[in-house]
């Protein structure tokens, strides 16, 4: 592995990563909400004490004569002595708002309730540079010369409240940590257990012999079924490939055996001849056989190439390719006194492997030349249609009867009572290449009784894949 490679991909790490991310989000939301609810709980608990203190003062506030008397009970402030030793402030103001005793500048509630409301108001503020919780309590006093609501404010620094809030918060944070840890451990083992079938699958596949392409029948979790399905699909294709490869090899060796055997016997005969004329005749036969065998070998090679090579797709003008092929075959056609020509569009564009298509044209044209009687016409053409680009080859040879039109595409299948030299691979190669290009091949009669072959290549939709 090169050092620059990305860190190894791990399901476990990803699962844990996502788990922690989700937990972090949930926990921070939870902590925030529990912070506020704890703050609320702490305030509720300590507010009651604050109110009790204010009420104790209120109880001892009265009008005596023409004066407002406030007798702060010792317990009113002493009860606020807390574990956090919070500081305590208070103020009592007369109905006219004037502070009678206590801390004059103790903050008042933002909206002072008017009228007879006796509900105590709790609020947060800052006093003497410390955050404080204040209760403001209105209490009615009445005397001969003075009557109205006095306001009693008692304040306490937030030490105890914050202490309680944070201890509650710490507790819930601790629990969340425990949950996170438990989750991580569970996820760790769940991934191990979840991946165990995969390990079994790996072992099973590892034990297989190279030619064992039976489908995998292991019981796997649902999540792996598509994977196993894909593996099985691939194995199936591999099986087909292997089968056709084997049958091709056996066919090929069988096909090569016959011409080689005849080569052998012909050359033996030639060796036995003494008459130079007879020798020459025999050698001509040997030459012919060798040429046929060589042609067969070449066809086998091109068939193999059409089957195996990974095609190299590009856009090209097939009419151009057809004309080039005609030029190659022209001497052969002239030799047989055939009229070989092109009839079709100036340009016909398609997408495909140019070399393979060339091979296809060559095979089709070669067949037409071979099977057409002397003096006949062989026409190659190309045509662009709405969805396809068509290659057409027409001859006025004997044609192929309907019953053979499927089987002629099989390897080494030749129609009976044909005289022409052929090895039966030409159309097989054509079919192979056509399949590679997703093209359809049609065999048809021509009006004159000859054969018309049409290969239709699909044109990719503009903007399509």
């Amino acid at each position: 592995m090169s050092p620059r490679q990305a860190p190894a991909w791990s399901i476990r790490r990803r699962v844990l990563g996502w788990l922690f991310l989700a937990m972090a989000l949930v926990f921070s939301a939870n902590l925030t909400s529990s912070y506020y609810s704890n703050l609320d709980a702490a305030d509720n608990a300590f507010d009651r004490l604050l109110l009790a203190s204010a009420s104790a003062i209120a109880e001892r506030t009265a009008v005596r004569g023409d004066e407002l008397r406030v007798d702060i009970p010792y317990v009113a402030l002493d009860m606020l002595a807390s574990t956090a030793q919070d500081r305590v402030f208070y103020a009592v103001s007369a109905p006219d708002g004037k502070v009678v005793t206590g801390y004059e500048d103790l903050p008042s509630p933002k909206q002072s309730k008017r009228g007879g409301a006796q509900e105590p108001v709790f609020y947060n503020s800052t006093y003497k540079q410390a955050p404080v919780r204040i209760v403001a309590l209105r209490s009615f006093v009445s005397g001969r010369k003075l009557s109205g609501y006095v306001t009693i404010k008692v304040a306490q620094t937030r030490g105890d409240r914050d202490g309680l809030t944070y201890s509650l918060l710490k507790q819930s944070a601790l629990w969340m940590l425990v949950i996170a840890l438990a989750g991580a451990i569970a996820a760790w083992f769940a991934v191990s257990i979840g991946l165990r079938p995969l390990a079994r699958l790996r072992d099973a596949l590892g034990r297989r012999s190279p030619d064992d392409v039976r489908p995998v029948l292991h019981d796997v979790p649902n999540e792996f079924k598509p994977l196993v399905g894909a593996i099985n699909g691939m194995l199936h294709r591999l099986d087909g490939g292997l089968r056709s490869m084997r049958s091709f090899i056996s066919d090929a060796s069988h096909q090569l055996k016959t011409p080689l055997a005849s080569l052998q016997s012909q050359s033996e005969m030639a060796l036995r001849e003494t008459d130079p004329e007879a020798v020459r005749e025999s050698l001509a036969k040997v030459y012919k056989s060798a040429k046929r065998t060589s042609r067969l070998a070449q066809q086998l090679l091109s068939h193999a190439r059409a089957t195996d090579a990974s095609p190299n797709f590009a856009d090209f003008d097939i009419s151009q390719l057809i004309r080039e092929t005609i030029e190659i075959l022209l001497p052969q056609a002239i030799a047989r006194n055939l009229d070989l020509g092109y009839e079709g569009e100036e340009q016909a564009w398609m997408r495909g492997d140019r070399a393979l298509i060339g091979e296809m044209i060559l095979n089709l044209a070669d067949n037409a030349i071979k099977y057409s009687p002397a003096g006949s016409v062989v026409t190659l053409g190309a045509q662009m249609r709405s969805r396809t680009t068509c290659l057409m080859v027409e001859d006025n040879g004997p044609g192929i009867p309907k019953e053979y039109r499927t089987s002629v595409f099989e390897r080494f299948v030749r129609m009976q009572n044909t005289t022409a030299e052929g090895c039966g691979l030409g159309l097989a190669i054509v079919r192979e290449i056509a399949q590679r290009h997703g093209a359809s091949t049609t065999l048809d009669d021509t009006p004159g009784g000859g054969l018309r072959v049409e290969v239709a290549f699909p044109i990719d939709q503009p903007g399509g894949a």
Partner: protein
Amino acid sequence: MTMGRSIGGLWIAGLLFIASTGPSFADLVRFEAKGAPKERLVIYSSTDVERIEFLIRAFQQKAPGIAIDYYELDTLDIFQRVVDETDAGIPTADLALSSAMDLQIKLVNDGYSAPYFSEETESLPGWANWRDEAFGFTYEPAVIIYNRALAPELKQVDSRFELAKTLSEQSSNLRGRVATYDPKHSGLGFLFGTQDAVHSEDFWYLARSLGDNDVQLMTSSASMIDKVASGNALIAYNVLGSYALARERQNPDLAITIPKDYGLVMSRIAIATKTARNPRAAGQFIDFLLSRDGQELIAGPASLYAIRSDIQGDATARKLQETAEGPLIPIHLGPGLLVYLDKIKRKDFLNRWQRAMDGK
């Protein structure tokens, strides 16, 4: 001295006249550093310098680089100066040592002190440490003293009720010859009086009895002890035990009784100020006051009663707890002490006291 103060004005207005009646002087005693002077610690204290100089010298043995400016001030002055100087942003003391527990608590409550935390402050009992800002370093009982030579029968006066009863019965004998603190003019007297009013059912009965007997109202323990020693008074109530103990050692005529109904215990309070220029030295001094060495000196030459329970001797919390017949009630540091600083509350208390003195 006006009432236009923005902070604490209401509180202080009622107290100011105490200060204005007494001499508001500041006795500065400088203790130069033993070694090369590096820093200066400024202390405002209500404790007589003679009683504390052993401590200061011992401290300087340990911290030779610290020079100490010791201002001996009235308790109210200490409070007022710290508040005024802090508010005005001018240098104030690094450390305030005061017997006025309520005023010290008010300094802390109103935010004029700084927290200090150490092993020594940690080991203080809970009631003697408030917010890690106010630290009690003595354990001084309020006691009854009487003249053993002139009135041996006063030995039986061992509680507030007994004192009040004796005053009512033997009015001829004790009239004019009983002394106590003047709560109107003494911060400590006010503290003792208000604490008694909280704790004792008999306090107002006692106050009326004292008034009926033309009690001599004094502003210091020393003067009460002088009165009893000289025979001008036979008995004095709520005398600071630390002062009495020191005098008892020299004068066998003096006898000390800790009231058996309960013995009120006050603590001198040390606080480091918020704007201290030398908080480190202030902390060092607090640690020394609470250390074994410091407490040994408090129990010994200073006879201020050591608060630590691991110190042996006459002037120690331990000895007091062992010998006291009744419960000892230390005045707890906490917001409760603020109550009697309330203007109206104070006025009410003093009015009631005055009515008792007037025999109404």
